């Protein structure tokens, strides 16, 4: 099965279809492969299927058809402790944040590290440094339920990257942010990227991908409508570019 996957491929999607009952075709025949260490943008109109694609990648939903491999493993066949171990290596910032609103900011960020039994001291330092990077140090002991949407969004991102996962999935990281905060968020993500993490970002925010040199995949009505690179020098259509694209994308 994993013949198609060499060690440098992080995500391999082959003819993936996702149908929600009764008859919503959220994703239709998606094939894409994303290299290890790549930063990858996922764009498209609202309702195009971006969140659905991320949910498939983190095993929150199962594909109706097709194959998804993460680091050479078919994630929808992995269960139990193996699945837990895999998920510890995948950080996700959800579009709806999924913060525990009755817990403090620090506790929320710490969760992803606690489940992989990191030392308390290490966790404390990591939480402080992440909050410093996002200029949210003063929110350390606040309940996340009391934060503004933009602040919550950044805490959700901090939690996703905290455990230094090798794959980071980010859904609308800048939706509620001003330009400065957006820059901080992108700075945080590129640090993880530089440290070798594979990053997939679903976004509407043209400002964060337009000038990058990374691959951008546009989905329209559940189908791939284009796969391009930033700075306007990409290919007009996905179909031919896919295989070549993954090779020189880094």
């Amino acid at each position, binding site marked *: 099965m994993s013949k198609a996957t060499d060690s440098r491929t992080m995500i391999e999607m082959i003819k993936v279809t996702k149908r929600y009952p009764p008859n919503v075709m959220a994703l239709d025949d998606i094939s894409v492969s994303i290299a290890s260490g790549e930063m990858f943008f996922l764009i498209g109109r609202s309702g195009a299927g971006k969140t659905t694609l991320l949910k498939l990648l983190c095993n929150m939903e199962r594909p109706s058809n097709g194959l998804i491999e993460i680091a050479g493993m078919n994630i929808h066949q992995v269960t139990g402790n193996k699945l837990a171990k895999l998920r510890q290596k995948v950080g996700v910032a959800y579009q709806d944040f*999924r913060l525990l609103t009755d817990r403090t900011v620090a506790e929320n960020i710490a*969760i992803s590290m606690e489940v992989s039994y990191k030392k308390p001291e290490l966790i404390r330092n990591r939480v402080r440094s992440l909050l410093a990077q996002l200029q949210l140090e003063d929110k350390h002991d606040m309940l996340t339920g009391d934060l503004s949407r933009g602040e919550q969004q950044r805490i959700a991102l901090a939690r996703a990257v905290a455990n230094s996962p090798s794959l980071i999935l980010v859904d609308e990281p800048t939706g509620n942010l001003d330009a400065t905060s957006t820059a901080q968020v992108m700075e945080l993500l590129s640090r993880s990227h530089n440290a070798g993490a594979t990053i997939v970002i679903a976004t509407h925010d043209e400002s964060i991908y337009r000038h990058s040199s990374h691959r951008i995949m546009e989905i329209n009505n559940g189908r791939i409508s284009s796969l391009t690179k930033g700075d306007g020098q990409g290919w007009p259509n996905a179909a031919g570019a896919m295989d070549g694209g993954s090779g020189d994308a880094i």
Partner: protein
Amino acid sequence: MNFWFSIFRQTGRNLRQTWTTMFMTCLTVSLSVLIFSFFYLIYLNMLNAESRLSNELRLVVYLEEEPGPELQEQMRLKISRFDQVEEIKFISKAEAFNRFADQLGDNREVLTDMPQDFLPASIEVIPLKTLRNLSQVKLFAEYLATLPGTQMVQYGQKWIERFYSFIKLLSIVVLISGFLLILTATFMVASTIRLTIVSRQEELELLKLVGATNNYIRTPFLLEGILVGLMGSLLGLASLYALFQWTTHHLAGAGFLDLFTFIFFPPGIIFIIIALSIVLCTAGSYTSMQKFLRI
């Protein structure tokens, strides 16, 4: 090491959030432990009293005539044909008279005008220690009554029968309260853990998503069950002990109860009650997890 550290931290958090419900559950468990062990303690003490009483159990066969040595030997044979006995003692009329006189002590002069043989001769049969069952004693007594020359057989029937039926009743009460203990402990803990799980579905869901292993999510709930079982039974037994101390202290003066010496549970039984409570509470927590923790 790290695993247990995380587990205890998680359990601590759970308890901080739900300590009131946990506390109430603990009280319920301790109440049912108290009720059960209260009856069980009474039962134990009754058994204790019974074993001391039955040490003194003897059947007295009153005879019409004083048996000669030959007849004595025959009766001895007949009695031991029914069952082996500890001891058979023939009491002649004269012996009976002397005994009675001894019992009267200073008042023995009332007997001066009585003939030496006004009391019947008798056989005292002390049954084997194994013959301690009321129905067996009864059968034995009935058999003895059929021996030729027997007037009547006495063994304190009324008293013994009441005592035995009391113990029987008590053993039923112990069984019922034990059953109640099992029900309350298991169901209370199960429903408390269920409440916790349901009220924290969101968090448990998230824990799964960020890669918590099943053990990481489950063990704290099991620990809570163990904790409730331990604390509940300790509390229940401690209150029973206090009650026990109070009772024995206050009844020490009251004469008639000197007959009994009250005992508390030996360590082995205390240990078993605690262990039972822990096992039941853990089982309760486990069933809730199986049902409501969809992992």
